[in-house]
């Protein structure tokens, strides 16, 4: 295995708070040395001895690779949309070194064999692929999958993403079973009984367009229910279940999460870049959001919300209620999206625009510290998903940690052009959108997997 010297960059390591110039030497897939120095070059001789490749990082930030807790890779079964190979190529192009694969594949990833298939090196992944298999058999919401066996095979949590675990009793059992393994249940919070036939956010825009809307309560009521279940379980057992709420999009759900956290319950949550980048006005055709009327590239679930909800999401990121940023990367083929709005599948791609959109919105437009934004995408997902405990020393730039690193030019302002994508699909609302911060190198396990 080769050695690489990342020379002349500024290292940001959110875990330690380090934010200074340093040379970083990688060897055999781990970080061998981080040399904070005012004058680059102290590791040069050492690196030369080892025959290390030198990557010039002058003017760039060297940070832990992004860990995306919510990614659809579509394999097995829907390889016309994406494969594990193309999805992870898209990931590294966006600085993402670890993805957490969702189980709504065909068939649903609900067995050890399927989990092993997803994690297999034969799928030629460019990034680390971790997985959350289904919480219930076939994600049908009934019988729990075999949590112990799946955990043994590498599951880092359980989810029926794409749909909720709706029945109270089933969700309670899921939380208990996962708690026994100290793993989270990751919930797609949507009371589907309140969203039948709905294809966007409920409100004036939906009325104007003649589309049925999803009320915000469809999300918040499930979050509130799940929090009640956590309390019940803590009261009745010695267990401390971990609820992770996926792609939160409403102020009401975030208020419930904020409150639960203040009462000491183990709840974490994620927000997706598109939910802080766009509003439901985009679906009416909005030049400012570069959308056309009934533009299916703006159709996802949860849907784009009103300005007030978007502002509540941003506020919750800024005040720390939101733990992590995750994309919900959900590729769909052109012919699948090129249909009537109500018939189009939900979901958009996001791996290549996560960093650029998050930095632009949170850092540039809302003054959030660079270290804090990066923490939401790197160290926080590692910590909140318990990855070090599970054997993945990712999300930090420190001696001994996995050499999963991204190098990016933080000052680069650019425009995303979907024609350059490495994903198999092009269903993004960010085509033509302004981005801040451009990835130059992405290294996974000490190997360069992406070069701009």
């Amino acid at each position, binding site marked *: 295995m080769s050695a690489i010297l990342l020379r002349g960059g500024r290292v940001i390591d959110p875990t330690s708070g380090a934010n200074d110039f340093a040379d970083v030497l990688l060897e055999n897939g781990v970080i061998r040395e981080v040399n904070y120095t005012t004058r680059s070059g102290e590791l040069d001789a050492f690196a030369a001895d080892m025959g290390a490749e030198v990557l010039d990082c002058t003017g760039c930030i060297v940070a832990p690779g992004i860990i995306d807790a919510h990614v659809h890779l579509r394999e097995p079964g829907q390889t016309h949309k994406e494969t594990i190979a193309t999805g992870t190529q898209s990931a590294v192009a966006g600085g993402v070194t670890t993805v957490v694969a969702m189980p709504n594949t065909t068939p649903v990833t609900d067995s050890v064999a399927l989990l092993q298939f997803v994690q297999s090196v034969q799928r030629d992944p460019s990034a680390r692929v971790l997985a959350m298999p289904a919480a219930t058999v076939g994600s049908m919401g009934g019988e729990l999958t075999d949590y112990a066996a799946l955990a043994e095979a590498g599951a880092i949590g359980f989810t029926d993403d794409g749909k909720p675990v709706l029945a109270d009793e089933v969700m309670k059992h899921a939380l208990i079973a996962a708690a026994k393994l100290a793993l989270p249940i990751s919930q797609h919070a949507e009371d589907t009984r309140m969203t039948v036939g709905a294809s966007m956010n409920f409100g004036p825009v*939906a*009325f*104007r367009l003649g*589309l049925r809307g999803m009320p915000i309560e469809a999300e918040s009521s499930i979050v509130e229910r799940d929090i009640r279940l956590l309390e019940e379980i803590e009261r009745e057992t010695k267990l401390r279940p971990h609820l992770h709420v996926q792609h939160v999009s409403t102020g009401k759900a975030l208020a419930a999460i904020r409150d639960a956290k203040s009462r000491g319950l183990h709840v974490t949550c994620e927000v997706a870049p598109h939910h802080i980048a766009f509003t439901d006005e985009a679906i009416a055709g909005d030049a400012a959001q570069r959308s056309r009327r*009934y533009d299916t590239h703006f159709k996802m679930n949860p849907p784009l919300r009103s300005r007030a909800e978007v502002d509540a999401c941003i506020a919750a990121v800024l005040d720390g209620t939101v733990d992590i940023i995750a994309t919900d990367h959900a590729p769909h083929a052109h012919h699948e999206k090129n*249909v*009537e*709005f109500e018939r189009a599948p939900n979901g958009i791609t996001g791996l290549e625009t996560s960093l650029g959109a998050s930095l632009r919105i949170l850092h540039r437009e809302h003054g959030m510290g660079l270290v804090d934004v990066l923490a939401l995408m790197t160290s926080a997902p590692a910590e909140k998903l318990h990855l070090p405990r599970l054997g993945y020393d990712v999300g930090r730039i420190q001696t001994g940690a996995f050499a999963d690193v991204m190098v990016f030019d933080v000052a680069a302002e650019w425009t995303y052009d979907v024609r350059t994508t490495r994903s198999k699909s092009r269903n993004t609302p960010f085509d033509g959108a302004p981005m801040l911060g451009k990835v130059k190198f992405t290294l996974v396990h000490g190997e360069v997997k992406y070069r701009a």
Partner: protein
Amino acid sequence: MSLPSANATSHPGSLTSIHDISLDGITRLLALTDRLVAEPHRERVKHLDGRKVALLFYESSTRTRTSFELAAKSLGAMTTLVSDKSSSIEKGESLHDTGVTLRALGAECIILRSNYSGAPEVLARSTGLPVLNAGDGMHEHPSQALLDLRTMLTRLGLSQQLTPTTMAGKTVVITGDIRHSRVARSNAILLPKLGARVIFCGPTELCPKEALDISHGVEIERDFEKALRQADVAMMLRIQRERLAGLDIDSAEYIAGYQLNEQRLRAHAPKALVMHPGPMVRGLEIDSAAADGPQSAIEEQVAHGLAVRMALLHRALLGEANA
């Protein structure tokens, strides 16, 4: 001749939303309507002689379909109907593919009715052809708004040279199932642009407060009689019994609150113009005396529909410049 690319932007002759046509554009369209109506048949049929128009109806509608079809034939065009009742709409074929197929078969304009809101946008983008929206989901019915406008201008004695004050001081009360009505949406977008006040009237279930946002100059009044007293036009919408069944209202209650009947009309709006896009459910949203009385313009609406649709087809196939 090369076919327009699948990504071509919408054809300027399309009418997918009432937003797509300016006041000047409507003024020209109404003038064209007058000219076409005045022409003798043998002259009229020359305009679109040999042109091909496809009617793509995923949702049945005798009235709108016949109106468009006769309008096309009146101008000499050939028409073909593709409906969900015929076997022509291949099972599971996408709207994109159906549109492209119709184009390849020589269709030069497609009239689309769909139960999906926004479907005309998909078809217009896919084919690059002029697409006329004959009603999409719960969204819009722009040709209906134009025929309603011509009816109102005629009966209220207003100028067809439209300006933002053409209908200043006039109040149009639209009553009934606003929630599901594309007629209500198209009219509520168009009429305020001419200075009219639009009052939506109906119970909350059928007339939600989100409707207010559709346009400036739109208000909601729950009390039908209070609304009627302000009305220059009382536009009634069809109530589908099956919709009432799912909601928190019953027919008797609806009739008591919102039916336009002879007594109400005489007591509260003895001069208002009575309109209805049809088909009517007599005895539910409107009684026969109101529907057939001297204040009613319902039959004229149908005639205006045919006339306005001739002009829309002329605009779609011969261009704005020639229109």
